[in-house]
Each structure stands twice: as structure tokens, then as C-alpha cells.
């Protein structure tokens, strides 16, 4: 042995490690994925097949999937075209709708959490505001639109207001419930270590109520998406809601079906995204 060779210093593990697990075969790795993906895929295929059969009959009023594919081929394969005016790909319509939702939803999140914290903390505020909220939250989104148009006199802010007023209630109510349900144990801990004022809110109340708040935000973002489609049908302009209405007016049933599919997928993505944000922000204390 050469004297210059250094023996590497390695911390010896106290317990000998178990032999490495044999690498799972390809089949074993794909299996769990397949188990989750295959059932919904098969159901979708079965439904599309059923639809094809039912809608191909002589008296059918709706187009079968094969006709949707040929009619709306351009719309499906290229969502990004822009021929000016309202003749745009679905991506642009969805983007316009999402922008409205983003503005309205951020506003309602800010206001909803703030008001929720207030009525979750103050009995007086709850007694004063809760009955009013319980009545207002049952008003359907579209019923606000005429008033909103009268007040703002413009389509864009009116649509944003409708989103705001639709999604703010679940955020308020869930935040308030979350604050009221902060366990007495956490409050006792805060009392013993003399955590008070803003630090008490930031370090105890908000994180403890966060799972509830994110439940509210998730319901809120879903409602926003429901409201914007309906509102856009009435206010016009670029947006997926108006696209659907426009397609109906020109009897493009295939376009409507394609648009509905996109609306569903985007709504699903919004819900998942909100759940993921909640999971990350609450460090796993909110369920996905």
C-alpha cells in the first residue's frame, strides 16, 4: 500500500443498513398510475360512445362527437388564433374570463378574509352582520348584474363586481368559522408565552384558521368561475361566456360543446390550483 493514499473518513452507520430494495419493475411502477387513470378514461370513452349512438339517430337535436370534431376542428386544434374582433381562439376567450375572475376573486379574498376575521373575533360584529350576510349570500349572481350595470355603467367593472359579490360570502363565513374554532389550547399557549397584538394574529390565529380560510377560497374560486360564464353571456365582449352565447346565436352547437369542455377543465384546474396553494401555505395542515 502506498503511504500517500488517504483513507476516506466516513461516519460509520451505527446499524448496518438493510440491503437495498430491488428496483421495481416497469410494470410495478406504472400500475398505480394506470389504476387511477384507466377507470375515468374508460368511463369517458363509454359516455362518448353512448353519445355518438344516441345523437346519430334520425331525430337527434344535438351533434354527435364525430360531427363536433369535424365542425369545430379548427377551434379544437388551434386555441391561439386571433383574427381580430371577437374571432379569436378559445385561449383568448378563456384568458379574458380568467383575468376578470382574477381581479374579482383577489378583491373578494382580501375583503372576505378581513371581514371574516372581524366577525370571527367580535361577537358584536357577528350579531350585526351575520343575518345580513345570510340573506345576501342567497341572492343568485346574475341578479346582481342589472344593479351592477346601473351603478358602474360599464361592462368590465360590472362583471368584476358580480364575481366579487358571488365569491365573497363563503370566504367570509369560512374565515369567521376558522377564527372561532381556533382551539383554546393554542390560545392558552399564546397567553403563557405572552404573544399579543399583531404577532398573536400572524403567528397563532391566521395559521390556525388557514385550513378553513382555504376551504372558503376554494369554494369562492369555484363560484367565481360559475358566475363569470353567466355574466359574460349578458355583457358581451371577449370572454368564454359570450363565446358560448354567440355560438348559440349562430347555431354553432359544436362550438358550444367544445367551449363547455374547456370551461369544465379550467374550472377543475382552478379548484386544484387553489387546493395546492392551500396545502403549501398551511404546510400540510389543510387537506388537498
Amino acid at each position, binding site marked *: 500500500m502506498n503511504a500517500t493514499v488517504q483513507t476516506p473518513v466516513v461516519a460509520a452507520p451505527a446499524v448496518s443498513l438493510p440491503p437495498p430494495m430491488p428496483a421495481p419493475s416497469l410494470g410495478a411502477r406504472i400500475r398505480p398510475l394506470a389504476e387511477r387513470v384507466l377507470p375515468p378514461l374508460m368511463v369517458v370513452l363509454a359516455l362518448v360512445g353512448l353519445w355518438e349512438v344516441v345523437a346519430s339517430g334520425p331525430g337527434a337535436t344535438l351533434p354527435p362527437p364525430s360531427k363536433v370534431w369535424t365542425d369545430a376542428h379548427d377551434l379544437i386544434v388551434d386555441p391561439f388564433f386571433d383574427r381580430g374582433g371577437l374571432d379569436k381562439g378559445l385561449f383568448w376567450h378563456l384568458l379574458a374570463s380568467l383575468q376578470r375572475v382574477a381581479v374579482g376573486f383577489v378583491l373578494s379574498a382580501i375583503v372576505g378574509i378581513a371581514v371574516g376575521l372581524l366577525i370571527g373575533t367580535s361577537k358584536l360584529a357577528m350579531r350585526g352582520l351575520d343575518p345580513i350576510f345570510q340573506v345576501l349570500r342567497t341572492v343568485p349572481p346574475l341578479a346582481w348584474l342589472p344593479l351592477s350595470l346601473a351603478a358602474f355603467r360599464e361592462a368590465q367593472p360590472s362583471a368584476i363586481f358580480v364575481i366579487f359579490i358571488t365569491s365573497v360570502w363563503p370566504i367570509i363565513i369560512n374565515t369567521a368559522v376558522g377564527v372561532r374554532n381556533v382551539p383554546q*389550547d393554542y390560545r*392558552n399557549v399564546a397567553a*403563557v408565552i405572552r404573544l399579543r397584538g399583531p404577532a398573536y394574529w400572524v403567528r397563532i390565529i391566521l395559521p390556525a384558521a388557514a385550513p378553513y380560510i382555504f376551504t372558503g377560497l376554494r369554494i369562492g374560486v369555484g363560484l367565481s368561475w360559475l358566475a363569470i360564464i353567466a355574466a359574460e353571456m349578458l355583457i358581451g365582449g371577449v370572454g368564454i361566456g359570450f363565446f358560448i352565447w354567440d355560438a348559440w346565436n349562430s347555431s354553432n352547437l359544436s362550438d358550444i360543446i367544445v367551449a363547455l369542455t374547456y370551461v369544465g377543465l379550467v374550472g377543475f384546474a382552478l379548484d386544484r390550483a387553489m387546493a395546492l396553494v392551500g396545502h403549501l401555505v398551511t404546510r*400540510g395542515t389543510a387537506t388537498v
Partner: protein
Amino acid sequence: MATQPFLDISDVTVAFGRSRVPVLNGIDLKVARGEYVSVIGHSGCGKSTLLNVVAGLLPASGGGVVLDGKEVSDPGPDRAVVFQNHSLLPWLTCYENIRLAVDQTLSRTMSRKERDVWTLENLALVRMTHAKDKRPGEISGGMKQRIGIGRALAMKPKVLLLDEPFGALDALTRAHLQDQVMQIHAELGTTVMMITHDVDEAVLLSDRIVMLTNGPNARIGEILEVDLPRPRDRLALVADPRFIAARAAVLEFLHHRHAAPGLAAA
């Protein structure tokens, strides 16, 4: 003037709401510095109520508590509480749970670096260094309680208040933690007031056992001095006549003279 007791609970009475019968009636207890005192009694007798009064979490309707010459009026880190259900904040790691208490109570006397070292030291004291970056949801009940004890000790309390700290644990984990608490008590000389309903636990750990009569209107029925030498070894004690006598005395009090109200009626 006679020397004041370290912790002086004098004539504490607690009544809730408009109830005319108080939960606790005229509790008088003096605890010396470094003493380990247990309060035992049937469930519902107001043991935890007494601890909450000492902690300052609950105001006494009458009487008062003086700790080291200062009257207790609100909760504070000089009376750190280990809660029955650990009460760790689930969104913080074990380290962060202790660090929050350290930052909050010792930031005036310690630098940032010192607080970090002190937090790690307390994690080591309760032998939880290995789980410092885990969240409470990822560790066992016994480990959570150890973090709870570590958090309480990290506040450098004058008196450590234990509210049935081992009640929710299995027998083996409980024994293990009792040994650790005994060891920490011997090392640090902390004054401890522990609420328990476990007779063996009370005899094993305490210098004195305070027995409460049944509530409502609970009073101190009897105080038993446990003059077993320390350090105590649970295996050796099993056959020790003094241990057996002390255990018998507490059992006699709890099950003969002050049987649980529900059972006495049956």
C-alpha cells in the same frame, strides 16, 4: 419576618358563573423552591382548575397566588404549562415550536444565536434532537409530550405546571417519560406542580402529594409527604415498604374515604 414560601396558594376559591357552590373552596398550599408537588383527585374535582388559576389562565373568585413574591394576575412564562394534549402548533416544526416560545420569552436577554443554541439545548434535554425538523403530526404522542415539556422548560420557568402530562400515553411510554421528568427535575432543580390521577405516578415523582376531596366544593383533604430518597428507581421502589405505605395511603384516601361520586351512589 418568616421567609415567604416560593409558591404560595392562599385561600383560593373558584366559582363559575352564577353557581353558588364553588368548584374549589379555600385551597391553601405552600410550595418550596425545587419541590415536586402533585395534586391528585377524582376526575371533576377541580385539579385542572387549580392549575389554571396558578397558571393565570383562570381568575380565582377568592384568594390569590403569589409566586416568588409576585402576585399572579395573568399567564406568563414564569409559570410554564405542559398541557395534557401537548398543544403544539401543528404548522410549526418541533424546533420552531420551542423556538417561538424562546423568542417570545427570552429575546431581551439572549441574542439570536444564543436563542438558537438554547432551543437546540432544550431539544437535546428531552432527547428530541433527531426530530427537530418534523412537524407534530409526524411524531408519536410521547414525542409530542416531550416537545411540550422541552418548550415549557425552554422558557426558564420559576415553576413548571404539568396538567396530567402523561394521561394520554400508553403505560410504557408513560414510564419512560416519568423517568425523564425525574431526571430533569434532579438536574435543573425546577419547582414542579403536577396534576395527575395516577397514584403510582404521584408517589414515584413527588415530594408531597396533595389530595383533593370530591368536587364541587373541593378542598384539600390531606397532604402526604413522600420521604423516599432520590434518585428513585421504579423497579427498586416496587418492594420498598415506604413506597407501598405511601401508595396505600393515597389509595385509601381516594377509594375509601372519598370514593368517586358516581361509584359511591351505586
